[in-house]
């Protein structure tokens, strides 16, 4: 049986060197209209942040390794491209994340500015490997950091800002997942669980396997089972969470989580809110409430953030809260804007005509060749209208 519409297979690819257009794994060209769309989304997000008092900073793409990775865990260090600075002969890193850079700026050059300090940023980061869901190694981050404020209201402000930015772009079905990543390690410490056992319990918790976690956790079994059950939609999970008999030392963490959740339910009731007190992946350096942003039917995280210590590990570290949005994950969830209408201005059209057409919202495409066939060129360049005889004339739809 043959199918006439299927073309024959091409000759098998040779093992010759790759085509010159091949880019390295995880790197890509953004083309029209996608590149324009992303830039517009970044601008819209930054404008929203600026309206709430977050001032833009722009750190460099590359820094010395020590400052770039100073207060980061090793998972960030493993994601960093390094290169030798031929001038200073020191090792430099290409930023894998911008939070650390902004925290460095806040606690050094802007250390004298009054607190709380609100900073915003946008830029590309580069990572050694993409994740399973987002294979890109270069992508754009947009975010804010609220430096020198360790409070529930600071956490809530940052989460609300991010949510309002995203819904402003038209992202539908937003949900926030709240966690307190420090809770489980604190419980491990309080119950003096041996290191090997911690690893096994952590692995079970990461899989949300309640039976396996309980079997490994010894004296913590009941508490961890309770915490796993207190996972899911916020109202029900909060009730379970508050009913748990937690040790005094970790009660402030639970209280913060409950307070942030209650405030969000009140301030952004249209957004789905879930609680997951045992989520720990990617929150290794967070000290308080952490959060992840999702949207229905969008693969992966749109952003994440939480409370952390900004600046050097010892000394003048400052409690801070921030959020980072990942543009590569967000863009597919943003409805594409309608394409702008293009007006063809044949060569020789007075400059003022173009100015006033653009003021009316047209995109103008100037003709360069006075001898060309105007209609064909305008059609070929995807214009909807032509300026002719002092008027804007709509082109007929092509059959």
């Amino acid at each position: 049986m043959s199918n006439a519409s299927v073309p024959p297979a091409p000759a098998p690819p040779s093992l010759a060197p790759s085509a010159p257009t091949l880019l390295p794994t995880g790197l890509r060209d953004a083309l029209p209209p996608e590149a324009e769309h992303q830039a517009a989304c970044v601008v819209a997000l930054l404008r929203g942040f600026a309206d709430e008092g977050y001032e833009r900073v722009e750190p460099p793409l590359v820094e010395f390794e020590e400052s770039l990775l100073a207060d980061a865990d090793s998972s960030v260090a493993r994601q960093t491209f390094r290169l030798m600075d031929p001038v200073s002969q020191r090792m430099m890193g290409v930023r894998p994340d911008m939070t650390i850079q902004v925290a460095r700026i806040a606690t050094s050059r802007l250390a004298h500015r009054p607190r709380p300090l609100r900073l915003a940023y946008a830029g590309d980061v580069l990572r050694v490997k993409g994740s399973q869901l987002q294979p890109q190694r270069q992508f754009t981050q947009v975010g804010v950091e609220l430096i020198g404020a360790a409070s529930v209201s600071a956490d809530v402000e940052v989460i609300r800002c991010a949510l309002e930015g995203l819904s402003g772009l038209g992202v539908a079905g937003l949900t926030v997942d709240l966690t307190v990543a420090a809770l489980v390690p604190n419980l491990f410490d309080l119950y003096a669980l041996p290191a090997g056992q911690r690893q096994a319990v952590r692995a079970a918790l990461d899989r949300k396997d309640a039976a396996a976690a309980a079997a490994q956790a010894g004296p913590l079994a009941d508490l961890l089972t309770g915490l796993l059950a207190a996972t899911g939609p916020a109202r029900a999970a909060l009730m379970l969470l508050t009913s748990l008999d937690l040790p005094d030392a970790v009660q402030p963490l639970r209280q913060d989580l409950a307070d942030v959740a209650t405030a969000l339910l009140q301030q952004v009731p249209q957004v789905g809110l879930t609680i997951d007190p045992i989520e720990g992946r990617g929150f290794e350096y967070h000290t308080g409430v952490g959060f992840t942003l999702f949207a229905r039917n969008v693969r992966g995280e749109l952003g994440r953030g939480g409370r952390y210590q900004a600046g050097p590990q010892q000394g003048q570290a400052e409690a801070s809260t921030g959020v980072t949005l990942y543009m590569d994950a967000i863009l597919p969830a943003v409805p594409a804007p309608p394409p702008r209408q293009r007006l063809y201005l044949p060569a020789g059209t007075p400059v003022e005509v173009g100015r006033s057409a653009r003021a009316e919202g047209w995109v103008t495409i100037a003709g360069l060749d006075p001898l060309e066939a105007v209609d064909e060129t305008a059609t070929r360049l995807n214009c909807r209208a032509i300026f002719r005889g002092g008027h804007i004339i709509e082109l007929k739809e092509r059959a």
Partner: protein
Amino acid sequence: MDPRPLVLALPKGRILDEVMPVLARIGIVPEPDFERDSSRKLRFSTNIPGLEIIRVRSFDVATFVAFGAAELGVAGSDVLMEFNYSELYSPLDLGIGRCHISVAEPAALVDADAPQQWSHVRVATKYPEITKAYFAARGVQAECVKLNGALELAPTLGLCERIVDLVSTGATLRANGLVEVARIADVSSRLIVNRTALKTRSDELTAWIDRFAEVTRARAA
């Protein structure tokens, strides 16, 4: 109400026979085509509106769920170990499809073998990641030859000396003159859930996980 149905990914073959009674007890009945081997369909409706079933290869169940193409799935812990997808939760051991993943070698080799002297072994397996990690933890570099079936042939025909494969009764090993020399892990089938889906469709998915858990507890009791 979400316009997108929930998709449950099930593995073809051995495990499917054990999963179907579990689904029956939960009250999920796939359309009649599902039971017909002659059907070419890959996607099936069920008696529950908004719940579909897909039937894919066991290794692909984890991939479909990790990437959010299916929200729920049933996958062996061997597959989960091999891929180690961070976007999956496996909240429930269904207690079916029990076997283990083991190292096996020809009976003749066992007596002469001195594992403490190995620095490098060549192993035929469907599980290169598990195999490399297992041997690396013992200071041995494993060169994996990826095969997709009939692994027991590899040592007999000289492709390699050892294999890493699933063992349930050991009958296939014995029939090919192989002996299980080390057990890497016990294997059973897990209910798996996509991470994003569990966060964004928490109510629906938590309800399904609870129903699977109930039935599993009832079976164990």
